[in-house]
């Protein structure tokens, strides 16, 4: 800058000089220079981002057309470059759209929609095309065939960065035989780019994550490092994501500029209509509440005064009488009396109420006396009555004693005195209260508008001014709480004005008024936006997805109800898989936003932050130091679905730290973690039990052997004692052999402290008889004799049937934890 400064004195030509080099740049050109903002900062990462953008687009396209996605991703090492192929079975793209979808940045169908979707801005796939042309110099090759079409459209295209327009290098219509597309419909894109496979693990994470979170999709990945394709099959019962519907904006989530644009565009004339038509969750009642709040902000409220008491000097009747001229004396008197009485019926009266009162009295008297009380008379009467109600305009009464015998007392001061006195603590000196009241009255009386209208902001300013003045003159303090209390008290007795809000066409041009309207919308309680704009995965499908991705011992999932942040509804879901084939060590964290896996910037993500802050030890997971990602063979996944997921950057790698979202993430994860805890607890106690059983299974027979040896008796059977010790269910089969039939008895002894339901099946090689409630099914040469029994704690059930002599049987017992079961040997005395 020093060189410019030296020239400053000489000429004014610098600005012109600078202006010459200033020109508009296209968005494409901008991103060409700022690839990192979109996630294309290196060859390794660029490849992952390109896969991600293409796959996200493919999934979105399929789901929009209710097609179960079938996605094929291939990465080929072609020597100098890598070739990326992504093919889907989506609806295809019409011929005219193809160049724009892939060759123009910010072209998309969703940017203006409030609806959950993977892609939003329409940047991703064209940025990938841009990246590929920048690094390899080759155009992207797109083939697409729409459903029902006999041919596929083929394009080779690049992005013209100067204009941000697609540039078509080649265009053809291909017959199914010529095209590479596998299915009847779908889209295939091939891009060559400078890349490497250093980010292989992120790529796999992305594909695996996508599979987990899209159980309804079938995904296949082929890349040079894989011996055979990595395939994730569709989970059969998984459903397509619920169709989302676009929602109108929620009043809590719009900015001033947006509202002005909406006002310009709307067909509504009234503000009420505008609110109801253009926003979600606004009906007539809510619109009225918003408009009331708008009035308060725009026009203020009217201050209320009490009607004069009989003892007061102020008297409405003579004042009104004096204001009416040229009318019959009786009519005037009746009118004045009527006004005074009507006012007297009210507890407090504000200006517009007084005007209405006067009007009502005038109508009455016109009817009774057949005279006309026109607008002028009414105006004068209203003014006179108001003057009396508020007492002398700007008059200062020096002492209350004096005002008693003098003319009309300043009733504003008296009113404020009452209100300030009620609002402040008893300890405030009477003089302080009086001074505050006087100063407030002075400011109100000094307003241009003599209807005593104030906004809350004005009121606060008056109170501050009055309080500062009082503090200044004397050694007293009027604190912030006291001031706010005064404002609140005065505001509460003040009344909303009846003025109609301006028409929409006037409002749009009035920046201040729109600002008041936005404030009013935010200040109004409005129910959360509807959630049909979101398609959460749902707890069942999350679990199914985890099962698809991981061979674990335990799965849990939680799906929260929708919440709102900044006017956008969002849903947080969480899932946990534990044990089995999952590797031990630091738990894996899978992050998803609108069903898209986030694989970069883990450390910058709100999801990671929340997971680290949870005390995992409470959930029986190891957490060194009591904070951070827990240890153990676990996978924790979190899905944030929103019409507008707040990302930390355009590359959409990390969810921003928005408190509402963080809190929901925590609740969702804790919900799933609670299930994990009870599983681990149960498992621990089962393990303990199993260990005990293992030890006793060794010890008891040894004891039996030894006592048999020492006593010289037969070895006693240990199963009964074992079952009793373990509190187990003992199932014992015995056969009472007869000449023609064997009688089989199965004793089910429940030594535990709870009732147990069991499925007892005896598989025998001859036809059973006398079943006594059992069901028998023959299969091949075997007969399955089955009972469903429930045995109370400490009780024994005896099941029996008959078999031809000498038949063999084998007992199996299901639906009881193996650790809680002891199956006795066949102790038949055959």
């Amino acid at each position, binding site marked *: 800058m020093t060189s410019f400064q030296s020239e400053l004195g000489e000429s004014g030509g610098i600005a012109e000089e600078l202006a010459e080099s200033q020109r508009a740049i296209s968005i494409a050109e901008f991103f060409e220079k700022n690839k990192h903002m979109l996630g294309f900062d290196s060859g390794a990462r660029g490849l992952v981002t390109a896969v991600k953008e293409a796959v996200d687009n493919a999934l979105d396209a399929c789901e929009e057309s209710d097609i179960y996605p079938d996605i094929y991703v291939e990465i080929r090492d072609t020597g100098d470059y890598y070739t990326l192929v992504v093919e889907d079975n989506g609806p295809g793209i019409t011929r005219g759209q193809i160049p724009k979808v892939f060759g123009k940045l910010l072209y998309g169908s969703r940017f203006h929609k409030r609806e959950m979707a993977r892609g939003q801005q329409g940047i991703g796939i064209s940025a990938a095309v841009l990246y590929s042309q920048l690094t390899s110099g080759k155009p992207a090759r797109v083939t697409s065939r729409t459903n029902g079409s006999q041919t596929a459209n083929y394009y080779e295209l690049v992005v013209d960065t100067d204009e941000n327009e697609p540039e078509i290098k080649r265009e053809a219509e291909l017959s199914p035989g010529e095209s590479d597309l596998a299915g009847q419909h779908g889209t295939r894109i091939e891009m060559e780019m400078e890349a490497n496979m250093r980010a292989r693990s992120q790529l796999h994470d992305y594909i695996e994550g996508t599979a987990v979170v899209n159980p309804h999709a079938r995904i296949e990945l082929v890349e040079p490092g894989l011996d055979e394709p990595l395939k994730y099959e569709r989970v059969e019962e998984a459903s397509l994501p619920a169709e989302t519907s676009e929602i109108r904006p929620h009043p809590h989530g719009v900015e001033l500029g947006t509202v002005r644009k909406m006002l310009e565009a709307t067909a509504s004339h009234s503000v009420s209509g505008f609110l109801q038509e253009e926003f979600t969750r606004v009906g007539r009642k809510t619109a009225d509440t918003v408009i009331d709040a708008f009035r308060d902000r725009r026009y203020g409220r009217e201050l209320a005064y009490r009607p004069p008491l009989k003892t007061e000097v102020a008297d409405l009747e003579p004042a009104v009488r004096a204001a009416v001229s040229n009318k019959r004396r009786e009519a005037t008197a009746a009118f004045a009396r009527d006004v005074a009485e009507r006012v007297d019926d009210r507890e407090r009266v504000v200006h517009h109420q007084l005007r209405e009162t006067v009007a009502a009295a005038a109508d009455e008297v016109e009817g009774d006396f057949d005279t006309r009380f026109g607008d002028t008379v009414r105006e004068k009467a209203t003014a006179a009555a108001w003057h009396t109600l508020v007492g002398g305009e700007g008059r200062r009464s020096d002492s209350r004693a004096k005002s008693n015998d003098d003319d009309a007392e300043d009733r504003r001061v008296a009113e404020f005195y009452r209100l300030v006195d009620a609002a402040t603590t008893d300890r405030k000196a009477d003089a302080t209260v009086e001074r505050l009241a006087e100063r407030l009255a002075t400011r109100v009386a000094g307003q241009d508008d003599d209807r005593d209208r104030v906004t809350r902001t004005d009121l606060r300013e008056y109170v501050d001014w009055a309080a500062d003045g009082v503090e200044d003159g004397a050694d007293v303090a009027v604190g912030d709480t006291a001031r706010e209390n005064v404002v609140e008290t005065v505001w509460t007795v003040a009344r909303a004005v009846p003025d109609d809000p301006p028409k929409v066409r006037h409002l749009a041009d009035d920046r201040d008024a729109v600002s008041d309207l936005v404030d009013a919308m935010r200040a109004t309680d409005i129910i959360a936006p509807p959630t049909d704009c979101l398609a959460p995965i749902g707890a069942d499908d999350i679990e199914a997805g985890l099962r698809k991705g991981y061979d674990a011992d335990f799965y849990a999932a939680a799906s929260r109800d929708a919440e709102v942040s900044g006017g956008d509804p969002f849903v947080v879901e969480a899932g946990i898989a534990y044990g089995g084939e999952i590797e031990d060590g630091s738990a894996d964290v899978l992050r998803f936003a609108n069903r898209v896996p986030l694989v970069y910037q883990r450390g910058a993500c709100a999801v990671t932050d929340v997971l680290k802050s949870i005390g995992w030890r409470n959930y029986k997971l190891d957490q060194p130091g009591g904070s951070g990602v827990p240890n153990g063979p676990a996978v924790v996944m979190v899905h944030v679905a929103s019409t507008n997921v707040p990302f930390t950057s355009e590359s959409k790698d990390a969810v921003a730290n928005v408190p509402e979202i963080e809190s929901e993430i925590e609740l969702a994860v804790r919900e799933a973690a609670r299930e994990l805890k009870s599983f681990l607890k149960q498992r621990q106690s089962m393990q303990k039990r199993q260990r005990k059983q293992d*030890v*006793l299974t060794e*010890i008891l027979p040894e004891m039996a052997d030894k*006592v048999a040896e*020492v006593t010289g008796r037969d070895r*006693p059977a240990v199963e009964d*004692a074992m079952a009793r010790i373990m509190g187990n269910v003992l199932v014992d089969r015995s056969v009472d052999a007869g000449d023609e039939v064997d009688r089989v008895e199965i004793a089910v002894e429940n030594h535990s402290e709870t009732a147990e339901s069991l499925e007892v099946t005896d598989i025998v090689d001859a036809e059973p008889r006398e079943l006594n409630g059992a069901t028998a099914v023959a299969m091949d040469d075997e007969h399955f004799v089955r009972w469903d029994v429930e045995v109370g704690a400490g009780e024994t059930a005896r099941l029996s049937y008959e078999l031809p002599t000498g038949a063999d049987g084998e007992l199996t017992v299901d639906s009881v934890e193996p650790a809680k079961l002891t199956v006795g040997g066949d102790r038949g005395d055959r």
Partner: protein
Amino acid sequence: MSTDTPADADSDPKDGIAREKLIELAEEFHEQIEDGDVPRMTLPTRTKSNIEYDEDDDVWVYGDRTSTRSAKSVRGARKLLKAIYTLEFLVRQLEEGRSSTLRELYYLSESWDNEEAQFNDQDDSNQLVEDLEIVSDVRREDFHMRPEESGATVMGPLRIREQTRRGEREIHCQADVGEGGYQIPNDPDTIDFLECDAEFVLAVETGGMRDRLVENGFDEAYDALIVHLKGQPARATRRLTKRLHDELDLPVTVFTDADPWSYRIYGSVAYGSIKSAHLSQYLATPEAEYVGIRPRDIVEYDLPTDPLSDSDVNALESELEDPRFDTEFWREQIELQLEIEKKAEQQSLASRGLDFVTDTYLPDRLSEMGLL
């Protein structure tokens, strides 16, 4: 093995009885298992709170409270398995007419095929033998189990005949022995008393004091039978002491340090120990009297002292609640000691000269007690 034809159990009828009792116990386990019951063994609770005064015998015995070792827990099951293994071992030992030491049993368990049955440490096996003693009502000695060594000795004008494995031996406990004295055998019931010129028994806690008394010729000068307790006395020492009292009508006195642990030594000589309360009638000498050193002596003779440690204070306080020390004498002495917060060793009497104990302290104390 069978129950009917024990080959050589007839050699000693006592062995036969012991064996029968052990087999009965095994039969009990057998029945429990066969009935589908949890195998278990019930024993008196062996804690201080379950010690009661037996008015007939003037000793302290186990009360009515019992604890059950049962296979319901892994710990209990392991204990029972060990008990059964030990039981089998004892039965065989009795059949073969052999004996072994407690320590040998501990090492022997290492050779058992089942690791669960092996003992973790010597306390484990000692306790088990005691358990079996209690449930079978047979003394350890009758199982042919010996402690490793007692080493306790007697010195004084007493002639005995000992039934040794190598034949009978007649020994005079003053004339026929060296300065070390006559070593008490593991089973003192193998001793016959032949001739006694002693007037009383003086049981001494520490080896240093016992040697001082012998060197100064206290046993000769006062016709005392000096029994060395060697700290907490072994069963054999206590049994012999009891026999000296019961059979030879000798008064028994106990001479220890003035600290809570030493009072317990006196307590176990006089009333029995918590661990072997089931044998109190057989081991304890309720008439035994405490010579000293009393806390009062610390004050009276202004003996060199050590301060009481926290554990000493705790031990004294727990003795105040110990039924064995619930007498006026002990309450007074323990309270005094807690007040002065000091303890003293027997050897502290040497601060007044090496002969003070034999010339002054003991003659004075014994006269006071009416024994001289």
